[in-house]
């Protein structure tokens, strides 16, 4: 290990990110996602005890999307000290961008057998509104997934960071932003399906969305994205840029007095984080099969913060762990004791902030 802690310039790039243990863990994670899950889900017959059902593939795929969000939020909150309560909005925007494409892929197989998505027929609309043009092209959907959250975060962050809105103020106005967006998307006339949102998807890129192979492909792509995000985030936080972010978190005024323009750093990480959320949302929608405005409710965004807090903010593995633990618990509770889930979630919020400020990773390190 001593060779690995040498001066950065001489260390190979790969070892700068993680040591032997870290790469082994990533390797095992990759092995499970790329080999074990596909084999046990697709090749092992359902009668076998080793078979992994579609339920589990969807659940783990969903949690991996959440883990990407947790990583994104950890970058801004854990490393730069900016608690955004608007990440649910970026997630949902990515999901809606993908959802528009999926709605167009339904074609004439909807309930009304029309070229238009069902909800537009329902509203007696005769043609697609302007913001739906090109939505039948996958590349355009992919561009929107990145661009819409990215541009919104850039503009919003530019104004907020320029006037040095920080701390709780920033949290409150991001919360107001996602609340306003939720109200907007609940309107039927906005053109995104009102409170029903988008659902009943049939195909993605011509493949049936319910086929086990498509499901598995989405799962593997999500796992790839998660590992990619993880490594990219690690690269960011170990770079000089990441050091400046941590310094901003700990004493922003001093960093400014040292001659850094902190706005650029905060804006860059906030925008990057929003884009990651958008991508996670785009992966989430085809797997779960529905997107509606309740994804933008302020409650969802705060829940994302607790994933990071449970895992331990300021640690990347912690973010993934936290997203897994909280959502695993949620899946368990909502099936076994649905009426007690909010009690449990509330208790997690209170106990983590009171007794485990460093989260699970803090406990493990001790």
């Amino acid at each position, binding site marked *: 290990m001593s060779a690995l802690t040498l001066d950065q310039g001489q260390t190979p790039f790969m070892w700068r990110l993680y040591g032997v243990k870290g790469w082994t863990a990533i390797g095992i994670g990759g092995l499970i996602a790329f080999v074990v899950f596909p084999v046990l889900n697709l090749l092992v017959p359902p009668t076998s005890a080793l078979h992994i059902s579609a339920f589990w593939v969807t659940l783990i795929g969903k949690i991996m999307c959440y883990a990407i969000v947790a990583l994104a939020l950890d970058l801004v909150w854990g490393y730069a000290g900016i*608690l955004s309560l608007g990440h649910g909005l970026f997630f949902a925007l990515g999901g809606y961008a993908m959802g528009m494409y999926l709605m167009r892929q339904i074609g004439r197989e909807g*309930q*009304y057998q029309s070229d238009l998505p069902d909800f537009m*027929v*329902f*509203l*007696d609309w005769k043609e697609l509104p302007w913001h739906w043009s090109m939505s039948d092209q996958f590349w355009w959907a992919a561009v929107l997934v990145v661009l819409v959250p990215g541009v919104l975060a850039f503009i919003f962050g530019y*104004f*907020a960071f*320029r*006037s*040095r*809105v920080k*701390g*709780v*103020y920033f*949290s*409150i*106005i991001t*919360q*107001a*932003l996602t*609340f*306003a967006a939720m*109200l*907007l998307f*609940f*309107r039927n006339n906005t053109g995104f399906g009102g409170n029903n949102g988008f659902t009943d998807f049939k195909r993605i890129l011509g493949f049936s969305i319910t086929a086990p192979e498509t499901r598995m492909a989405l799962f593997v792509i999500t796992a790839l994205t998660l590992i990619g995000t993880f490594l990219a985030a690690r690269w960011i936080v170990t770079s000089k840029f990441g050091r400046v972010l941590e310094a901003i978190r700990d004493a922003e*005024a001093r960093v400014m007095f040292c001659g850094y323009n902190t706005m650029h750093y905060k804006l860059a990480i906030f925008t990057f984080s929003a884009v990651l959320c958008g991508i996670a949302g785009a992966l989430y929608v085809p797997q779960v099969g529905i997107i509606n405005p309740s994804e933008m409710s*302020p*409650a969802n965004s*705060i829940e994302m*913060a*607790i994933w990071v*807090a449970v895992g331990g903010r300021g640690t990347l593995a912690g973010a993934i762990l936290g997203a897994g633990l909280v959502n695993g618990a949620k899946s368990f509770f909502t099936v076994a004791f649905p*009426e*007690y889930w*909010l*009690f449990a*979630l*509330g*208790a*997690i*919020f*209170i106990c*983590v*902030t*009171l007794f485990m*400020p460093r989260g699970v990773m803090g406990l493990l390190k001790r």
Partner: protein
Amino acid sequence: MLLQGKGAAALAALFISASAFALDRSALEKLASDDNDEKIAAIAALVAEGDPKAADVLKSAAEGEIEVDGKKVEIVVNNRVRARIAEALSVLKLLSPDNAERHAAATALTGGADPAMLPLVLKARDAEQDPAVKKLLELATAAMQLRSEDKETRLAAIRALAGSDNKALLVEAASDADEDIKRAAQSTLREMDDRLVWGEWLGLAFAGVSLGSILLLAALGLAITYGLMGVINMAHGELIMIGAYTTYVVQGWFRGSALFDFYLVAAIPAAFVVSAGVGMLLERSVIRWLYGRPLETLLATWGISLVLIQAVRTIFGAQNVQVENPAFMSGGIQVMANVVLPWNRIFIILFAAGVLVAMWALLSKTRLGLYIRGVTQNRSMAACVGVPTARVDTWAFGLGSGIAGLAGCALSQVGNVGPDLGQGYIVDSFLVVVFGGVGQLAGTVYAALVLGFANKLLESWSGAVLAKIAVLVFIIFFIQRRPQGLFALKGRAVEA
């Protein structure tokens, strides 16, 4: 009473003859067709016969299923067809013997309806005995005749509508292809505008003050806990909700007694005490350990709010509960032809003013108020001169929570009471406090009134949801331009 009874009997007699026929089968088949225009024609045909059975058919059609020859047929209903069905059901309700039901149905129809249903509405109008309902029905027939083919009928309809305050229909007619109709509608509109403009402004101002006073009540408690103490209390909305549920419980005790009209006298202090108690408990057990760590406080209090919501859901059920207004609060004062000021709104405005005065007196005239101000301005100096700061924190938090309880008591008089009640107010009340300037009570008052007015003013142009969005976006930009709020504390405390 006797007269009305006769009227109802006459109505019933009128339609017993019709119900002797079975439902028109071809109309049913048309209703099941794929074409929306056919469906709408079928709805009109069903109603024209005035058969009471038609109501059942239409109701089930609205749910997407009808019965033809004993077989269930699924039909597709879009929003246009659904609107026609709703109109048709209103028309059928005009035949109801119940006065209130007829009144409601007639009111629903004054916005206009499919002209094909006109004959039945005319029949109902002629048979109507209640003067108020009759007047409404005259407006409804005029609204329907406005869309008829005959020019003379339409001109007459425009004249008839001049007496109403329903502008939407005339605005439509004012851009008609026919010159005469256009001119008639425009001149009627102008007359109507002149007559109504003062009332509209007055109504708008009242609605603005009313919304402002609700926002103020919701935000006043937060102005203490967040504004003065700096605690980000995301459970504030739930303390409001607890106040509303306390009112519900107290109202339950008084139910059936002769003193029911005065239950608020007991409910107001009860709501204050219960919410304050919960707040003080929270301060002692959780919030105390998080002073100086605002983001952690935010998360922990959010957790508390989830627990409180679920607790209320477990105890009272997930449905909304019914809180009845005392009799003296229902109804309102008719100030002008088109302005009615409801008593419960007036009560809330007065109540908000009262709470504000009481809070001001408490903070500026009592020893506790002095302590609270001392601790928030300079904690260590206050401790040095012997102020028990920890206890003052608890009392101050209890005071803020208690005011939230009062807000809940007031809100229970104008809106639904359910476990999610508080969630709707938390974003608003934080924005009011931040907009007014943290630590500034006067700022909170101005901010609440300004936002109330702005919201109502925009609402009259763009509808409720867009107005709300516009106000939120405005505040977001405002805070970015001026993070210290409308009224900034003067001094050197730049970094909080």
